[in-house]
C-alpha cells in the first residue's frame, strides 16, 4: 500500500537528533510490547502481516506514536482480527488497568514455552526457502522496478518504482511478502540487490548529492530494462 510507512525521500520531517545514549527500553511497557513479538508470531501472525498491521495505522498516529506503539497496534489488531482476543474485553481491561495501574497480572508459569520462545530469538527463523526456479536476472543486468500500486502489503518502495538500476547480487528465494501478508502462501521468489544512482532516483543533480542506493527487490517487482 502507498502508506505513510513508505518514507524514502520525504522532506520536512526535521532533524534526526540522535542522543548520545539511549536505554534499550524507555519504560516497562516498551519492554513488554517488545517481548510480545514472538508470542504473536506463534499465535499465527506472520512477519509480513505484522508489518502490514503497522502500515495500516492512521498516518497521524504512525508519525506521532512512539515506536513500540506501532508494535502494540499490530499485535492487538492481529489478535482481534483472528478472534483470539475480543476488542470489547480489551477495552474493558484497559479501563481496569488505567484505574488500577498496580493490579497484578495473572500468575501463570510455563517454562517450556519460555524456552521455546527464547530458542526462536537465539536461532532465528529465516524466510529463505529452497526453490527450483531459475532466477530470471543475473548480476550486471539492467532492471526497472515495475510500477505497481497495490493496496495490500508490498516491499517495493514508491521512491524506486519506475527507476532503472543494475543487479548487484542475486540471492536465493525468500518468502514473497505480498502474498504471505494476504494468507495466500509463501510463494518464494528470488531476491536481488539492485544498485541505483542518486541521479536516476532524485533527478540529474541527484538531489544535490552523489551517492548510490542499494535496494533488495523480489523478482516480481522487476522487469528487464
Amino acid at each position, binding site marked *: 500500500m502507498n502508506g505513510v*510507512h*513508505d*518514507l*524514502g525521500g*520525504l522532506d520536512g520531517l526535521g532533524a*534526526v*537528533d*540522535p*542522543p548520545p545514549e*539511549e536505554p534499550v*527500553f524507555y519504560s516497562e*511497557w516498551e519492554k*513488554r510490547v*517488545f*517481548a*510480545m513479538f514472538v*508470542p504473536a508470531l506463534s499465535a499465527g501472525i506472520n512477519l509480513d502481516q505484522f508489518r502490514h498491521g*503497522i502500515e495500516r495505522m492512521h*498516518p*497521524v*498516529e504512525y508519525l506521532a*506514536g512512539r*515506536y513500540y506503539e506501532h508494535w502494540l497496534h499490530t499485535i*492487538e489488531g492481529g*489478535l482481534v482480527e483472528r478472534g483470539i*482476543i475480543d476488542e470489547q474485553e480489551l477495552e474493558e*481491561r484497559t*479501563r481496569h*488497568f*488505567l484505574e488500577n495501574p498496580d493490579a497484578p*497480572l*495473572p500468575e*501463570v*508459569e*510455563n517454562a517450556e*514455552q*519460555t524456552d521455546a*520462545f*527464547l530458542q526462536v530469538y*537465539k*536461532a*532465528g*527463523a*529465516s524466510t529463505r526457502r529452497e526453490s527450483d526456479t531459475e532466477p530470471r536476472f543475473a548480476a550486471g543486468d539492467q532492471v526497472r522496478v515495475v510500477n505497481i500500486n497495490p493496496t495490500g502489503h508490498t*516491499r517495493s*518502495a514508491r521512491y524506486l518504482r519506475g527507476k532503472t538500476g543494475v543487479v548487484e547480487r542475486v*540471492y536465493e528465494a525468500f518468502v514473497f511478502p505480498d502474498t504471505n501478508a494476504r494468507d495466500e502462501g509463501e510463494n518464494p521468489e528470488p*531476491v536481488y*540487490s539492485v544498485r541505483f544512482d542518486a541521479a536516476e*532516483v*532524485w533527478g540529474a543533480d541527484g*538531489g544535490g*548529492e552523489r*551517492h*548510490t542506493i*542499494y*535496494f*533488495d*527487490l*523480489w523478482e516480481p517487482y522487476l522487469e528487464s530494462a
Partner: protein
Amino acid sequence: MTTTPQTGSPPPVAGRFAASDAEVAARVKALESLMIEKGMMTEQAVDRIAELYEREVGPHNGARIVARAWTDPEFKQRLLEDATSACAELGIGGAQGEDMVVVENTDDVHNAIVCTLCSCYPWPTLGLPPNWYKYPAYRARMVKEPRAVLSDEFKLNLPDDQEIRIWDTSAEVRYWVLPQRPPGTEGLSEEELAVLVTRDSMIGVGVVPEPKG
C-alpha cells in the same frame, strides 16, 4: 462584511491520537493479561526475552566480529563472503540476523544502512535499533541526502570523493558495516580493538575513533 467563525471547524482526520504514557501502559497491561490468560505467554517469558536484549545481545557482539576481521585476514574474507556463517563461528546469530551481509568501508567507499519501509536491523550483531533509526526523519532523509545527514546530524564529514553507498534493507537480508581500522591501533590486541568499535560505525553513521592518549 461577514466574519468567518474561527472555532468549531471539524478536524481534518478523525481519531484520538497521541495517547499518554499511562494510557498506553494500561493498554499494554490489558493485552498482556489477556495473552497470559489465553496461554500465549507468561510474565516470566517477558522478563527473560527482555533480559536477552538488555544484557546479552548488543553492539558488543558486532564489535567482536569487527575486531576479529581486523586481525585475521582469512576471517575477514569469510565474513565478507558469508557473514552469517562467519558470525556463527563466534557463536553470534539469531532472529533478524538469519541472513546477514557485511559491507566493507574503504578509503573510496563509505557504507551506511537504513530501512525506509520499517526498521529492519541486524539484531544479533548490533542489538535492538536506537529510536532515531526507527523514526521518520532518518528513514526519509538517508536515501536522499546522506552526506548532509551524516555531516549535520552525526558530525561525520566524509571526503567529497568518497562514494557513499546506502543499503536500504527492504527485504530479509540484514546488512551492516565493517568499519575501517583507525590509525594508531597497530599494537592493540583483538580484545582492545573490540572496545573501540562503536555501534554507529557499524550502522555507518560514524567511524571508529582513534584511541585516546
